């Protein structure tokens, strides 16, 4: 069995975002970039399945600028066997990413495709579901547990009311929740080894995918600021403020 894992390079989750003064986006120059956190869970799960003997190859793919190669390389360092980078220059919407991934799936013929449930930059939460639609594959989103059966997966999903379990036939798309597993760190020897693993480079136009945006970003602005609060000295003062000033209790 072969597992394709899609990974995205995003601004590190610990970075405090700054909006550009001209309102065209957020500052990305000289900002720490990392793998989108739930994509780390997706890689980890694929590697674990391979280690259990149920898969024989894990391929990591990223769609993005040249530097997204680092993100693919990181996936190789934690156990993916080889990488693919599909280069694009501009922002690519999830619809276009899913069309690119569809081409990669047709070429690689994986049995499973894993990715994070949501990218923490645009917060769209679309790509996995869109890819599933385009391939007419079943989808299991927000997975917190995956059991590999003979010809299917049993997936526990994190939903608003609690947990839901689905059985999806293979081939399938799974989008991963942060609670799925604990991603490992890459060891130094594995980082060195990953440098020798192959990364195939393609471009969106090689694959014949039109990546022209359908959504125009008119402006990006800071969220409304909260007015500064106060520190209270005691519980008594807190309750009095909530009762008489804020009038919420």
């Amino acid at each position, binding site marked *: 069995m072969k597992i394709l894992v899609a990974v995205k390079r995003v601004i590190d989750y610990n970075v405090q975002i700054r909006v550009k003064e001209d309102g065209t986006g957020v500052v990305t120059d000289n900002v720490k970039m990392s793998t989108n956190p739930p994509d780390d869970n997706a890689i980890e799960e694929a590697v674990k399945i391979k280690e259990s003997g149920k898969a024989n190859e894990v391929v990591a793919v990223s769609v993005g600028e040249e530097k997204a190669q680092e993100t693919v390389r990181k996936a190789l360092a934690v156990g993916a066997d080889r990488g693919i980078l599909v280069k694009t220059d501009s922002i690519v919407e999830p*619809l276009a990413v899913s069309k690119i991934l569809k081409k990669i799936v047709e070429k690689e013929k994986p049995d499973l495709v894993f990715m994070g*449930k949501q990218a923490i930059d*645009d917060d769209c*939460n679309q790509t996995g579901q869109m890819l599933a639609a*385009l391939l007419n594959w079943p989808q299991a*989103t927000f997975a917190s547990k995956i059991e590999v059966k003979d010809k299917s997966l049993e997936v526990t999903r994190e939903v*608003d009311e609690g947990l839901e379990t689905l059985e999806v036939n293979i081939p399938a798309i799974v989008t991963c929740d942060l609670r799925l597993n604990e991603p490992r760190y890459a060891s130094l020897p594995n980082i060195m080894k990953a440098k020798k693993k192959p990364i195939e480079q393609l471009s969106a136009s090689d694959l014949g995918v039109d990546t022209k945006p359908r959504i125009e970003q008119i402006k990006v602005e800071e969220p409304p600021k909260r007015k500064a609060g*106060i520190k209270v000295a005691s519980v008594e003062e807190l309750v009095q403020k909530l009762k008489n000033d804020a009038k*919420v209790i």
Partner: protein
Amino acid sequence: MSVLIISEHNNKELKPFTLNAITAASKVDEDVHVLVLGSNSDSVAKSVSEIPNVKKVIHINNPVYENYLAENYTSAIIKLSEDYSHIMCSANTFGKNLMPRVAALLDVSQVSDITKVISDDTFLRPIYAGNAFATVKSSDKVKCVTIRPTSFDPAPTSGGSAEIQLGEAGDSTELSKFLKKEEIKSDRPELGTARVVISGGRGMQSGENFKLITAVADKLNAAIGASRAAVDAGYITNDHQVGQTGKVVVPDLYIAVGISGAIQHLAGMKESKVIVAINKDGEAPIFSVADYGLEADLFDALPKFLEELNKLNTIQK
């Protein structure tokens, strides 16, 4: 043209976030239709028809829809899509799972999780966990939009009498099967819609200690939330998680106890009207968004807080 809302329900009752989606849809176009895909779901279709903002209910009653599967919902929605300029639903786990599957088959670039309708093609949406807001304009012929429920008031539920039109089921999938749902039942208000929310973080130190939170929640008729750290540590179940990848809440009063205030948690609660933080670390980032900060050991502060609440003559419900 008209807006098609995809309703969320359990075959008996409509889920409340559909009401918020209907309000958002009304801001796009007055001709709001609601699709009810269910099995033995007449009571849902009837209650939707009584919502004054709804002009038509399309009810497809078929055993295929006994349990919600995105694959089955999508094929029914695609069949109806030609008549609509917009397809909308709530951006909770229901709508997040469904809408991209619909959008991709219509070759539409979806607009996710909007907080404001600016015009019929332009919307406001948070990005980077709410640390920035983008105004975006869709150029697709059909707009597939999910709405952040807490950003729109729920539509009124009585006084209307929309026509209920029966529809045909779409293709059903063999690829995917519903096995079970473990719902956590509670007598408390729902986290997403509660007037007061009290949340615990890693500072609670154990699941057992959440009883301190529960006691205050009982007194204030509050929902109980948690940070991801508390859920990951196993103190409380995942349905309580507030944050970027959990639930977004906008209560009148949010009380964060033993929560440091990671960016991901703030994303889920910082639009709350009044925020209280109780934390023994005076430097914790949660204090930067708190209206009232109390630097104290929560194990002293929570019992005292309850004691002071008990002294009050009246408490708002």
